[in-house]
């Protein structure tokens, strides 16, 4: 079955570039130039992935994300220019799955789409329970974290934090989401907790905490657990 992607982008060049490079990869690509057009198309035939550009002529897309999340579980990828951090984070917190910063390469775009589709594919069966990459293995069912086969001892908070990232492996988790899921919704402004616990977690998991392999920083946005 061909996967359908809806690209919402007002710039003609970027739209046609995305269309051709995604078509080459075997996706069926639909395009919309505004939030209202995208809403109409979502209503008629929901796609499998939504690529949403920030700064569309008729709105910043936040209500589109809200509407999509009300009815569909399809992955939403936000495409933003740099310096649009605040809007980008707002959309991620509203339920968008991931983001791409312009200018991006086609390879990056495809990788992000693959990650988001993998999550949606498994979301229907069961959430991710085991994460494995290089020397790291995390088993959420067994509450077990291993590096090179050796079991690591994590504090309950460290484990909760890691587990939250494992459940969204490969995708960005915003500071707000992480704080609210690990500490509770009243702690969403306590970003310093993240800095302190992330340093502890990296010290245990990473070979070189100063240049992490697994727990990646998305500067100003959040964290991402590497999957490749």
């Amino acid at each position, binding site marked *: 079955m061909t996967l359908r992607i809806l690209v919402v982008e007002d710039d003609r060049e970027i739209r046609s570039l995305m269309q051709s490079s995604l078509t080459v990869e075997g996706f069926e690509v639909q395009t919309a130039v505004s939030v209202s057009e995208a809403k109409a198309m979502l209503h008629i035939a929901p796609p499998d992935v939504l690529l949403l550009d920030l700064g569309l002529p008729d709105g910043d897309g936040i209500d589109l994300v809200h509407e999509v999340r009300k009815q569909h579980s399809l992955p939403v990828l936000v495409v933003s220019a*740099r*310096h649009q*951090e*605040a809007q980008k984070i707002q959309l991620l917190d509203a339920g968008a799955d991931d983001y791409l910063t312009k*200018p991006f390469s086609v390879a990056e775009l495809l990788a992000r789409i693959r990650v988001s589709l993998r999550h949606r594919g498994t979301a229907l069966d069961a959430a991710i329970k085991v994460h494995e990459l290089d020397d790291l293995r995390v088993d959420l069912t067994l509450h077990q974290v291993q590096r090179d086969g050796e079991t690591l001892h994590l504090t309950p908070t460290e484990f909760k934090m890691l587990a939250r990232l494992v459940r969204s492996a490969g995708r960005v988790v915003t500071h707000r989401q992480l704080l609210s899921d690990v*500490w509770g919704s009243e*702690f969403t402004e*306590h*970003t*310093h*907790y993240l*800095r*302190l616990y*992330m*340093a502890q977690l990296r*010290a245990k998991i990473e070979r070189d*905490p*100063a*240049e*992490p392999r697994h727990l*990646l*920083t*998305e*500067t*100003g946005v959040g964290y991402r657990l590497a999957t490749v």
Partner: protein
Amino acid sequence: MNDVAVTAFRRQPLWRWFVVALLLIGATACGYLVDHHVSLTSQAMVYVLAVVIASYTLSWKESIVCAVGAVTAFNFFFVPPRLTFQVDSQEHLIALFTMLLVALVISHLAAGMRRETESARLNAQRAGQLQKLATELASATTPDEIAVLGRAALKSEFDGQCLLALGLGGDGLTNGGELPPAMSDAMQCCMKEAAVLGPGTGRWPGLDAWYLPLGTKGQMSGAVCVAPALAGDTAGREHAQALCSLLGQALWRARLTSSMLTAQHEAQRQQVQSTFLAAISHDLRTPLAAVIGAASSLQTQHDKLSRVEQDRLLSSIVSEATYLSNVTDNTLQLVRLTSSIQVLKQDWESMEEIVGAVLARVRQRDPSRRIKSKVPEKLPLIKADPVLLAQLIGNLLDNALQYSSDAIELGVSASDHELQVCIKDRGPGIPQEQVQTLFEPFSHNDHSGQRGAGLGLAVCHAIAVAHGGSLTFRRRTGGGSTFALTLPLNKQQPQREQT
């Protein structure tokens, strides 16, 4: 309040009359004490003394009463026949008249002296106030500060209602709306005529206050209303004029300074704009030319080019376009940082994380891992905008990779009050003549055939300054450069959650 004032007003003359009575009683008592030892003349002298004291210390009214009282008492108690008002000989009558005359003359002289002393004291006080105001005005820079000082000076000198309004001659007063129309009209008029209005000036003498202009004709900055205003109080009016002239000069000076600053800013802005345009035309056009050249070559000569050549053109398009994107980012960031629009999104950040994220990006250009990073554990957190700091460190590392081919050291260290990030390379270094202008945007455009570095460093510097820190450059002994970013540390580090 009012009752107290009224009683005080009434009590004052009573107290004076009491002094008069006391002097007379005292003189009479003295006269009796020495009655059998001295002559009548000496007794008269005692009364003269009392009259002299009264006329020296009290006003002319009391001194005359005292003189008449002294003559009467002397006549009654001592001039024979005693205890009657009869006067025996003509000689005694002359004594009485003389005493009255002495009282009047001394009273007149003393009053004059008192007036002079009082006016000397007032003059000294006013001179002191003028001097104080002049000193205070020297450090005031804005019209509002000057107005505050002016109001305080007027209030301390004049008891009535004193008002100060700022404004230019033609276009009304800035706080004119709060003034009664008559007052506002008078102020406007005195500004227009550049002259004092009110009692004793010959202009609008019917007013109950003086209206003085702040400034001279053509350099008007406002007006002042001073009360109480007495037609005869020339010294008071002159003092008010002196105060107003000081204030007027200060206001005019403030206006000149501010318009000079505006002109300077404008000139600076235009200069920045023109260097910006020159630099943009260079920094953007060159890579654009490369992109267009490569792309059009692929378009028109596609079949004639070998596979290798096609790949080379394609990768040149990608790298030139990436460079263009960096220049655009830096240009935008510089504009944001230098035009006060930027509000830093500061949060508690870990320098280790920021450096880690920058390295993750820069390593793509550093496959041989020339960057050696040394980041100690458990660095204190900093309040900062992580995206900006990442851009700063990224720019410095990009430059180092571009200009040197040896190892690059990246070190972070912390002291009690600051955090330092050092980036050291062994590149050709910066020529001495460029060190001064290193962090100025577009200061050394492409004399070397290399490009973009000037703008990147200007952005880095602006980011450091926006964080209350600094970015410094040092030449390394043995060749190469050291860039040091220093950021202030908050004494209060955030607390972990209570568990």
